[in-house]
């Protein structure tokens, strides 16, 4: 299990670095929101790995809460972008 923990830690670090690069570089606001969503998914995955390797359930409610309310941020930002249209009648 230690080898699995090391391998997944490296993979998650590379993935988080890629998502953060996209957040910093992304040409539009929606790209950044999407990359932040991916970063949240990577964080939830890292919590799951920690629980599975160390065989505890301390983070389980956090993972459930992330999966329930994690979408609110991107929905809010998407509405915010949509409300700044030039022509509000464009529905």
């Amino acid at each position, binding site marked *: 299990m230690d080898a699995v923990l090391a391998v997944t830690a490296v993979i998650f670090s590379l993935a988080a670095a890629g998502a953060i690069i996209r957040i910093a570089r992304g040409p539009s606001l929606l790209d950044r929101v999407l990359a932040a969503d991916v970063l949240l998914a990577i964080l939830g*995955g890292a919590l799951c790995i920690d629980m*599975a390797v160390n065989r505890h359930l301390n983070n389980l409610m956090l993972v459930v809460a992330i999966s329930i309310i994690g*979408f609110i941020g991107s929905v809010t930002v*998407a509405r915010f972008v*949509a409300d700044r249209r030039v022509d509000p*009648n464009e529905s």
Partner: protein
Amino acid sequence: MNPDFSGPDGWVDLASAVFMVVGALMSLAAAIGLLRFPDLMSRMHAATKPQVLGLFLLLAAIGLQLWTWWVWPVLLVAWIFQLLTVPVSAHMVGRAGYRTKHLHRELLSADELEAVVQKAAAEAARKDSSDDGGTR
């Protein structure tokens, strides 16, 4: 991990290790897709990998490692809520991206939203003109 495959424990450990590594690779695939793909729509396609399949594999790894029956309903609830909420955010982000022209139109193979947008714009324009006629 101890390579003891005489009993079921070694196989369970092996299966959960494979699930964890593959689930982590889903996150890496999403990051590579975010960095390499050209526009918002294709990046959205890459971003769903760790949110659905990656989370499923990692939750299955938790269930296999803890090996108690009452964990599975909680993990199932987490995954089902993820399945319910991810399309909502993807829908909103994709819609806002279409509205704000954050897409390469030459990369689209089908655009089923354009007719709806044209129709709504035409109706809005007709309503505007009739309102103007009524006030004059």
